[in-house]
C-alpha cells in the first residue's frame, strides 16, 4: 500500500543522503521525494511517498526515527490530509489541435505558463489521480517534456471520524 510520510529533519549537509541511503540500503522503495526548508530555522521538511506492507512501513518509520538528524516522522496515510503535486507538461500543440489541448487544460484548471509555435507548457496541481488523468488525456498529442515536484502533503486541522 502507498504511504505518504512527512519527515522533519535537521537541515544540515548530508541529511538527504542519510535518508535516501537508508531506503536504498535496506531495500525500501521511494516513489516520490520532496524536500524544502520550513519556516523554523534549521529544519527542513521531506515528504516521501513509499509503498510496502504494514510491517515494511513500520520498519521504514522506525528506521527514519532512528536517524539522529530526523526530528519527527508522521505517516499521513491514515489521517485526513491534503495532498498535492505540481507538474509541468510540455505538450505538442500544432495549430489544428491547439484548441483541443487548451480545452483539456481548461477542464483541469491548468495554467498555460509558456507558449511556442508548436507546443504549450501547462502547469497543473492536484493529487496523483488527477495528474494520471490529465497525462492520459494529453498523451495522444505527444508529451515532449514532463517535470513533477513529487507529492507534498499536510494533515488537515479537523480530523473527522
Amino acid at each position, binding site marked *: 500500500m502507498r504511504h505518504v510520510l512527512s519527515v522533519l529533519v*535537521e537541515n544540515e549537509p548530508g541529511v538527504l543522503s542519510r535518508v535516501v541511503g537508508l531506503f536504498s*540500503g535496506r531495500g525500501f522503495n521511494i516513489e516520490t521525494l520532496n524536500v524544502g526548508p520550513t519556516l523554523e530555522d534549521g529544519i527542513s521538511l521531506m515528504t516521501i511517498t513509499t509503498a510496502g506492507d504494514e510491517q515494511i512501513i*513500520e*520498519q521504514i518509520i522506525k528506521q527514519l526515527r*532512528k536517524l*539522529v538528524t*530526523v*526530528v519527527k516522522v508522521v505517516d499521513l496515510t491514515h489521517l485526513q490530509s491534503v495532498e498535492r503535486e505540481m507538474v509541468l507538461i510540455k505538450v505538442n500543440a500544432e495549430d489544428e489541435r491547439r484548441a483541443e489541448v487548451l480545452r483539456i487544460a481548461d477542464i483541469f484548471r491548468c495554467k498555460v505558463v509558456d507558449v511556442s509555435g508548436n507546443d504549450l507548457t501547462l502547469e497543473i496541481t492536484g493529487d496523483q489521480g488527477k495528474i494520471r488523468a490529465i497525462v492520459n488525456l494529453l498523451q495522444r498529442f505527444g508529451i515532449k517534456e514532463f517535470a513533477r515536484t513529487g507529492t507534498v502533503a499536510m494533515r488537515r486541522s479537523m480530523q473527522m471520524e
Partner: protein
Amino acid sequence: MERTGAQILLECLRQEGVDSIFGFPGGAVIDIYHHLPDYPSLRHFLVRHEQGAIHAADGYARATGQVGVCLVTSGPGATNTVTGIATAYMDSIPVVIITGQVPTPLIGNDAFQEVDIVGISRPCVKHNYLVKDVKDLAWIVKQAFYLARTGRPGPVLVDLPKDVLQAKTLFEYPESISMRSYNPNLAPNRRQVRKATELLRRSQRPLVYSGGGVISSDAAEELTWLCRNLRIPVTSTLMGLGAFPGDDPLWLGMLGMHGTYAANMAVGHTDLLLAVGARFDDRVTGKISSFAPAAQVVHIDVDPTSIRKNVNVDVPIVADCRLALRGIREELEICPDLPDWNTVHQPWLDQLAEWQRNHPVRYTYADEPIKPQFVVEKIYELTKGEAIITTEVGQNQMWAAQFSRFHRPRTFLTSGGLGTMGYGFPAAIGAQVAFPDRLVIDIAGDGSIQMNIQEMATAVSYNIPVKIVILNNGYLGMVRQWQELFYARNYCATCMHLNPDFVKLAEAYGAAGFRVTKAADVERVLKEAFAVPGPAIVDVVVEPEENVYPMVPAGAALTDMLLV
C-alpha cells in the same frame, strides 16, 4: 587562552575520561600527534594497520563497557577502519573513530589521501560528523561520545580537516547535551511490563533468549535474579554469552545454527519466549516461520527497529534491558498470588535436562591429531572461566562458544553480526590494555589469525601479553565444512597451503612460540604459554576435517539439527 583544534580534540578526549587511544598517524593528523605528548593521561598505542586500531578500540569497549577510541589519518587510514566500524555497528559497540581529512578548501578536489569517509561510513555508523569549523569541534566530540554510549550503542565517526585542527578558538567544553532529534527511550512502559509479567505467571514452559543487549546494558544481575527466582531456563546468542552463569543448572547453552540440542529444542517447545536484548538474527532463528512456533513472544529491546523486524511479537517492551527486567521484578514483588515456580516449571525443566543429558555438545577424543574441541576445553579448565576470551571467526569461534563456559559479562569478545575474520587478535590487545593483569586469550584459526597477524609487533612493542591459541587445521574450516556437507566436498580455495611456521613467526616478532601435536601435551604447553610474561602464540596442530556440530543447515528449522 585560544587553542588549536588538535589541542581542543585532545582536551575533549581527556574530559571524556579516555585513557587509551589506538591509532596510526598520517599527514592529516600530524597536528594531533604533535600535541599528544602534552596529554600524558592519554596513552597512545601505535598499531601496524588501521584495522588493528579499530578492532582494538572495539575490544577495549567490549571488555570495559567504556567508549573505545581510534585515531587514524585521512584517505587509506580512514578506509582501513571501515571493516572494524561495520563490526562494531553490527554488534552495537560504543566506539569513537577520529579520522583526519584534507583541508576544507581541498575537499572535493580529489586531493592527496582524500576520501569521503563520512559518505563511505554512513551506512555502518550510528552517526558521523564532518567538522567544518573549529568552533563546532568541542560540542561535536561531546555529542559523539554521548551518541556512542547511550541508547543502542554504536560507532560514531568524527572527520577532522587539517585546517580545522590548526585553526584556533577559545575552548569551552559543554557541560550537558540536549538534542531535539535524539532521545532514546530507556524506561519501560508500565502496562507492557504488567502484560509480560502476566504471561510469565501463566506460562508452563518459559524460556529466556538473551542477547548482547543484556551485556551492553549491564543487566546480567537482573537477568540472573529473574531466571533463578522464577526457575526459567536460559539460552543466549553468541553475543549474549557471559550474561548468565554458564555453570548454572538453568543454563542450556547457546542457541541457533551451532546451538546446543537442548537450547534449540527448548525454542521449539517453549510456550513463552522472553527475548531480552536480542534481535532474532537469521543465524539464531533458522527458518523463521518455524521459530518458537508454540510460543508467545515478549521482546525487550532499547531499539524500536529491532521489534517486529523479523518476527511478530506479542508484548514489545522498548526499553533498556536492565530497567525493563527491574520493572518485571518490581511487578512480581507486588503480585499477590504468584505460582510456586518450582512445581509449575519442573516438568519442563525435567524435559530440558533429559535433552541435555542425551545430546550434550560432544566430540571423540584423539591423541593425534588433536581434536580442536579438546583444546578449548583445556583452556577453560585451566582458566576456570576467569580469562577474557576473544575469537576469530568460523569453526574456532563456534568451538570457543560451545566448549567454554562463561560466568561473567564482558569475558567473551567475538564478532557476532559481521563475522569479521581478523577481529580476535587486535580485540584481545584492546582488552588486555584495559585489563593488564588478566589473562586474555585469542582462540584463533590458522586462516583468520593471518588477517591481522601484523599486530604481533604492537603486542610485542608494548609488551601486551595476549596469548593466541591457533587451532591449526590447515583449512578455512567453516567454509570447508559447508563444502563437505552441501557442496559435494569440493574444497575449492579453502586449503591453506603453505601456512607460515607460526612458531618462527612469533619468534621473528620477538614473542614466544609453541607448537603442540599431541593431546597429552596440550595442558603442559598451554600452562607454559600462559606463564610467559609477554605475548605468545600456541600453534596447535588439530584434526583437519573436524566439523562443528550440532548444525542447523541454512534455512532449516532450528529443531532440524545435524547432530554428528
